[in-house]
């Protein structure tokens, strides 16, 4: 999303779905995982919208959809690419939008070679490093510029046409198992629901992200929505449905290793000085042109008066990264004995992470482990009740990890904010004091920092300066000395030289006179008011409801909404009017906060040498992009190519029907004994694991189960780990409805109750029937309802851009009955691996 449009967040908000004429839900089971938000899909349907659900399984979302399209897990780019093909071949694009608001007309470097030229690779591939040099992907430059006729053979539009030329309905049928007539019906419905008078929206979730080519799934949808003119307009957009309460917030104010608050990159070890850092990451044009102001204000928020122009605002205090330090890499390092201590908060990796066994084995290599949760979750209890204790792979007496289990306060026991799926910050107040020793994360982090600083006080060691110089002066209150969450929010918002809260990020300065903890959140405490705590009922304001909570940036609900008006500033149609140019007042007006400088007229042309947003035209709606337009083609920012390409999942029963290149060449793999892979199609022994495996969630449980398997009212609703299989697969493998089945991969085997259901369709792919096995991943060894963990089956094979595991498509075998216990379990799995290695077939 960031690469295509400029910001890493949903382009729209859930309430806006009611204005859609067509909603495509794909890579998401919205009704089950976002039941409250789904009311707006139901509302759209009541208003006449067509709802299409594309998913391997028929779910509770499909039950309410007008059309459910089952497809093979892991084939989405072929499907979406087929839609791109359909739009281009039948000239269904919204021409003026495409020409003016996207980079369709931009001419690309003549060194660029497409996957069509290189059989599945782009130019710049280095087999030695296993990565791309994106030099040839660049724009040709200002000399050639753009071709608004879209005819130049090297303009993005023509490249796009060639890239997707073979993504025909017949190819979609071959790869996805979707019949051509159903596929064309989806294309036509989508196209008929787009244009100046109509709009269509896409909703996705981790069904798209959790793949070795996951980012490119989303990119394909971004291309479709650009071609159809559906971004920045009411009823349009791409809604990224986040997995739980504050997942959007956890990237905005990141828990990630490679970004700082507000999506500023973490400095790399080779970026020596602040000037070098700024030079590398700032853009000359667009709002990233103020990168320096965002950075300096952040450094001032953290290090206060210690940050001075002389010391580069304490830039050297920031840690440096020198490679991949993401979750799974850290687990590998842990397993190899290179990580001493580990904090786990709000997460249960022993159940929730792919290849859970590897994670549990890694925990056993730590010196110490801190787990903060409501109950003793599996991550805290691994040392005495992990499945590996039963198999003998771990012995409690041999585990030296010192485990600290600290009780956490629940959301009702603390103040704070959630940033939800639509970038909306909503405040919640403490209702009761936390019981006993339960404490908030804020309490824990603040007092941990305070105690560390006390221990370091007086140290002359320069390495302690970053900690000692931190501004760490939050007010506390009450007997437990809870820090003020509002003070933290105010610091994130920032203040100016007069000490007053800032109103918007355009007030940020490079001279150190402003303080701001996350520039994208600047304004959430405007006028010294906690804007996130606003709760004006929907009935008392417009449907956009700007007075409910606060959305970043600048309380904007639809991003890039300048695109809801045509280049001249008029709405594309009366029905789809949202933001427009008010000639009389000389400013932008409408239902939302315009995502544009208020007084910049539609006919504005940048003067020579203009910088930042001043360098963008009055009809450049994508104000974060250097060229002010959305990117059909991404000349930079992605590790695995400027255009999405269908690659098979890392483990697949099928060879790639489009290219010789089987899987994403840039995907991250860990080839080591504790992360064995099933052979994939074309390799010896692939038929030992003949079925497609996909994992998912149920409404009744919450992610890794720590908050639901412990609750009686929820556990009784889904009291057992189960697998879903088609009647045909049940016959093929003698699986009994209501009985037990054992599901096997090279990692392990798990047992589950069996639901034989027509909701899992057998698909016809490349001339043969393919069965898919569905597994909800909520279970673990503890709580009221217990069961094996589906994630234990999955391999660690990751997307190269965001290091997310491929959890939604792998291969497996399934057999009737319960799994063996103890060492016999490992023997069973070893037997499978041996047969796979020697090319033997499944039992």
């Amino acid at each position: 999303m960031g690469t295509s449009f400029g910001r890493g967040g949903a382009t729209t908000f859930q309430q806006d779905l009611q204005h859609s004429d067509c909603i495509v839900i794909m890579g998401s089971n919205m009704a089950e995982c976002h039941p409250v938000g789904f009311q707006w899909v139901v509302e759209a349907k009541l208003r006449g919208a067509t709802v299409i659900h594309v998913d391997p399984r028929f779910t509770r979302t499909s039950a309410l959809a007008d059309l459910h399209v089952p497809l093979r897990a892991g084939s989405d780019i072929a499907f979406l690419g087929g839609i791109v093909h359909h739009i281009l071949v039948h000239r269904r694009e919204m021409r003026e939008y495409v020409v003016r608001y996207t980079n369709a007309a931009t001419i690309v470097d003549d060194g660029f070679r497409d996957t069509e030229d290189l059989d599945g690779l782009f130019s710049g591939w280095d087999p030695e490093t296993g990565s791309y040099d994106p030099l040839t992907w660049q724009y040709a430059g200002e000399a050639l510029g753009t071709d608004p006729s879209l005819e130049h053979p090297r303009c993005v539009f023509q490249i796009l046409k060639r890239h997707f030329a073979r993504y025909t309905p017949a190819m979609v049928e071959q790869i996805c198992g979707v019949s051509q007539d159903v596929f064309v019906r989806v294309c036509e419905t989508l196209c008929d629901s787009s244009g100046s008078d109509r709009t269509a929206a896409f909703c996705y979730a981790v069904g798209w992200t959790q793949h070795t080519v996951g980012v490119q799934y989303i990119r394909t949808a971004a291309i479709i929505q650009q071609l159809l003119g559906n971004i920045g307009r009411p009823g349009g957009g791409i809604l990224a449905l986040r997995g739980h309460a504050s997942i959007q917030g956890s990237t905005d104010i990141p828990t990630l290793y490679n970004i700082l608050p507000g999506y500023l990159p973490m400095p790399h070890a080779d970026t020596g000085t602040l000037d070098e850092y700024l030079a590398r990451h700032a853009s000359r044009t667009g709002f990233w042109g103020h990168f320096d102001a965002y950075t300096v204000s952040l450094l001032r928020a953290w290090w206060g008066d210690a940050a001075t122009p002389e010391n580069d605002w304490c830039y050297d205090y920031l840690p440096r990264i020198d490679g991949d330090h993401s979750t799974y890499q850290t687990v590998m390092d842990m397993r190899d004995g290179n990580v001493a201590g580990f904090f786990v908060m709000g997460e249960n990796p022993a159940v929730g992470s792919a290849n859970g066994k590897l994670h549990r084995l890694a925990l056993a290599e730590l010196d110490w482990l801190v787990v903060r949760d409501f109950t003793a979750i599996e991550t805290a209890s691994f040392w005495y009740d992990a499945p590996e204790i039963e198999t003998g792979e771990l012995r409690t007496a041999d585990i030296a990890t010192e485990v600290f289990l600290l009780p956490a306060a629940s959301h009702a026991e603390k103040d704070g904010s959630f940033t939800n799926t639509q970038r909306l910050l909503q405040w919640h107040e403490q209702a009761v004091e936390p019981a006993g020793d339960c404490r908030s994360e804020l309490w824990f982090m603040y007092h941990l920092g305070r105690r560390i600083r006390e221990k370091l006080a007086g140290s002359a060691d320069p390495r302690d300066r970053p900690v000692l110089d931190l501004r760490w002066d939050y007010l506390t209150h009450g007997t437990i000395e809870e820090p003020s969450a509002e003070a933290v929010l105010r610091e994130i918002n920032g203040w100016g030289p007069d000490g007053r809260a800032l109103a918007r990020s355009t007030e940020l300065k490079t001279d150190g006179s402003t303080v701001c903890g996350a520039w994208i959140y600047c304004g959430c405490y405007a006028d010294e008011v906690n804007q996130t705590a606003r709760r004006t009922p929907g009935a008392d304001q417009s449907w956009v409801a700007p007075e409910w909570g606060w959305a970043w940036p600048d309380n904007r609900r639809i991003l890039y909404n300048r695109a809801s008006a045509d280049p001249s500033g008029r709405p594309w149609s009366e029905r789809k009017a949202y933001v427009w140019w008010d000639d009389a007042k000389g400013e932008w007006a409408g239902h939302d906060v315009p995502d544009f400088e208020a007084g910049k007229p539609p006919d504005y042309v940048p003067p020579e040498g203009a910088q930042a947003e001043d360098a963008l035209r009055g009809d450049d709606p994508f104000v974060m992009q250097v060229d002010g337009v959305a990117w059909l083609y991404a000349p930079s920012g992605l590790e695995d190519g400027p255009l999405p390409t269908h690659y098979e999942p890392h483990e697949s029963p099928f060879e790639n029907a489009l290219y010789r290149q089987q899987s994403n060449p840039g995907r991250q793999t860990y080839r080591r004994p504790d992360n064995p892979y099933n052979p994939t199609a074309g390799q010896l022994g692939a038929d030992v694991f003949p079925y497609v495996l996909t994992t998912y969630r149920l409404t009744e449980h919450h992610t890794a189960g720590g908050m639901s398997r412990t609750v009686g009212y929820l556990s009784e609703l889904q009291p057992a780990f189960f697998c879903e299989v088609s009647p045909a697969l049940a016959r093929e493998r003698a699986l009994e409805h209501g009985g037990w089945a054992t599901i096997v991969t090279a990692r392990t085997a798990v047992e589950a109750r069996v639901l034989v259901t027509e909701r899992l369709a057998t698909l016809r792919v490349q001339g043969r029937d393919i069965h898919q096995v569905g597994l909800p991943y909520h279970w673990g060894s503890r709580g009221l309802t217990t069961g094996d963990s589906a994630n234990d089956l999955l391999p660690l094979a990751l997307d190269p851009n965001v290091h997310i595991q491929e959890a939604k498509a792998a291969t497996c075998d399934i057999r009737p009955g319960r799994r063996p216990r103890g060492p016999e379990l490992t023997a069973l799995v070893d037997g499978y691996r041996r047969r796979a290695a020697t090319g033997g077939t499944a039992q």
Partner: protein
Amino acid sequence: MSEPARVGFFTDTSVCIGCKACEVACKEWNEIPDRPLEFLATSYDNTGALGADTWRHVAFIEQPRESGGVRWLMSSDVCKHCTSAACLDVCPTGALFRTEYGTVVVQEDICNGCGYCVPACPFGVIDRRKDDGRVWKCTMCYDRLRGGLEPACAQACPTDSIQFGPLDELRDRAARRVDTLHDQGATEARLYGHDPTDGVDGTGAFFLLLDEPEVYGLPAAPVVTTRDLPEMWRWTAAAGAALAGLVALSFTRRR
């Protein structure tokens, strides 16, 4: 003070997403005990039926279609709060009563656990709790109504599948909804329990269904089981009188 209007539930199963928020909200508000964990292998339904510890129950019905694919029906069932409620008729203690809202409620401090109401209910709703012997069922959140709140299930329902309000309004709304669905080609849509002339004189909780009632586990033509009681009593009285006459006669003859 005038009586409040009769209120009810209109459960529109065509927009139910089977999230079971109604089941959980009901149990939370009414502090209903946990049930044993049982995997029923009945689609996503592990509750089974309405009972003493289940006052809202979401049924899941998977229907393979001739054209291929599948239809998945979901429906949140509840006590019907019948206009003519047999449970109420047979209750000897007065524990069951009709409230000022027209709903039927058990008073837990009066119920003596006789259980007469259990077989009397034509829908199999009311049920005895094993460990205390008393009967329990949906109260339409009588305590919440008195506090000016809507029932917990209706408030929790994210898609407005469960609608609460004055029964007359709900019936009008439901009729319009059926018309809309028919216009859209969903000719199978029909109402259940809305008709004041049916065997229970209409229910306070009625439904929009997409198939025959039996598919959802509902009786096709429920009849208040006490319908024939007056008639039966008349016969009983006549028979008693006749018997008394015979006895009297026999005594007369002896003299």
